[in-house]
């Protein structure tokens, strides 16, 4: 059965690639927004399968990557306080702040716990009434319903020793920011599938209309990304700029309205600083005033922290699709997944980390490996 699937997929993939080749008449730059999509593209060499006219650049959709250094340092300062149990998703554990990461703090005896779900923190809080339980609430719109529910339930159930350190980011304002930049190269977007599972895709329609770019909401599988690319190129070649839904088997235009309702009750939109990019207006969530008793930023007095990013790192340009990982002189040299210098190398879903993990620092710029998507082990380098 496995081989049949792969055979079928290979034929479908070839057909899609041939169709893109047939219709493309000039170069186009497309951005996939989500870090999960970047990971699939690099792992399966999707970009190598496409005709040379199509360039894929990698977007800012990795929440771990774009969490600001100041926020990470703030998290560390809170975690170090006595009587605090600091909870986080595993993804954040190895992300370096100015001095250390959460794993190092844990090894030094700081009570840092990895949780699968923010809702687990409520159990920890109930079991440890004499401790302050703080959850590092990072993520895009996909994660917001979970984090919102944890705070909603804490308020409902009177769990006063639970708070969250909010570093939520939103996709549409980041896309607008990319498109507004004079350096912008992006002509079409593969939109973020699971973000839209929650939010739907209505809010992408004004962006598509205003900046005249096609936005095709796309899934995470190799076939999805190829099909999303075909749909985007079709629009570009026809001079269209619309929002289309490649991922219709999961996504509706309205999204999950039950989840949206709770998110809107708990969070409100605020300006947010993105690592590598800087502040983007109205690009994040913060807790509403009614939930201030669960807002770690209000509860813990943390002094303003001065941070400095590496002067070698060009992650801000990578996140906006202006540059690619291999355009950076430090990529794979001073900057590796073991010793990341900036945003796009700190998490597996960052573009630089994905390129590094799949050995692209070892390939020459001009290499165009004839990628075989059915065998997804292209030049994997064991770290």
């Amino acid at each position, binding site marked *: 059965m496995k081989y049949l699937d792969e055979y079928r997929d290979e034929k479908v993939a070839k057909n899609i690639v041939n169709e893109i080749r047939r219709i493309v008449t000039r170069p186009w730059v497309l951005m996939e927004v*989500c*870090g*999960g999509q970047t*990971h*699939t593209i690099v*792992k399966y060499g999707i970009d190598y399968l496409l005709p040379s006219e199509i360039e894929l650049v990698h977007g800012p*959709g*990795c*929440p*771990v990557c774009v969490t600001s250094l100041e926020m990470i340092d703030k998290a560390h300062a809170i975690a170090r306080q006595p009587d605090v149990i600091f909870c986080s*998703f*595993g*993804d954040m554990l190895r992300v370096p702040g100015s001095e250390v990461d959460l794993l190092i703090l844990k090894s030094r005896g700081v009570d840092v716990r*990895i*949780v*699968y*779900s*923010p*809702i*687990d*923190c409520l*159990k*920890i809080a*109930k*079991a*440890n009434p004499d401790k302050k339980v703080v959850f590092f609430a990072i*993520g*895009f719109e*996909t*994660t917001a*319903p*979970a984090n919102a*529910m944890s705070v909603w*339930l804490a308020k*409902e*159930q009177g769990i006063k020793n639970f708070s969250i350190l909010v570093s939520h980011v939103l996709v549409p304002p980041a896309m607008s920011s990319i498109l507004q930049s004079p350096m912008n190269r992006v002509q079409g977007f593969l939109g*973020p599938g*699971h*973000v839209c*599972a*929650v939010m739907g895709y209505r809010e992408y329609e004004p962006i598509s209309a205003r900046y005249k770019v096609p936005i095709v909401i796309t899934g*995470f*599988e190799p076939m999805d990304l190829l099909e999303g690319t075909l749909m985007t190129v079709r629009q570009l070649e026809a001079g269209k700029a619309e929002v289309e839904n490649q991922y219709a*088997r*999961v996504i509706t235009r309205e999204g*999950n309205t*039950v*989840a949206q309702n*709770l998110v809107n009750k708990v969070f409100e939109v605020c300006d947010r600083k993105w690592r590598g990019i800087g502040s983007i207006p109205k690009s994040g969530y913060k807790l509403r005033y009614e939930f201030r008793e669960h807002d770690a930023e209000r509860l813990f007095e943390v002094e303003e922290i001065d941070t400095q990013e590496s002067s070698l790192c060009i992650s801000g340009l990578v996140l906006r699709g202006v540059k690619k990982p291999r355009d950076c002189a430090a990529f794979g040299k001073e900057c590796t997944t073991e010793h990341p210098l900036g945003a796009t190398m700190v*998490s597996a*879903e960052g573009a630089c980390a994905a390129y590094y993990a799949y050995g692209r620092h070892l390939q020459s710029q001009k290499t165009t490996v004839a990628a075989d998507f059915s065998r*997804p082990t292209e030049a994997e380098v064991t770290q």
Partner: protein
Amino acid sequence: MCLAIPGRVTEVFEVQNVKMGKANFGGIVKRVCLQYTPEVKIGEYVLVHVGFAISTVDEEEAARTYKLLEEMNQLTELSVPEVDTGTNDAKKE
């Protein structure tokens, strides 16, 4: 990190007015909050992100997505143990 993992709902129950349940992810059973998919029933499939079902999917979609995530080593978050009950946790302290 925005990836959601498909699982089959095996139990549905309520905890303090919140719809909860259990879902089976290729053999690993985990507690899942079903409050955002109020219509879901036992035997159906949901896309789960950090312990919350955010969408329902059909069986074929679930199977294919699961296979891909497995291939991409994107299922490691399932191995993070759940916090048991408050009392057990207190005992561990």
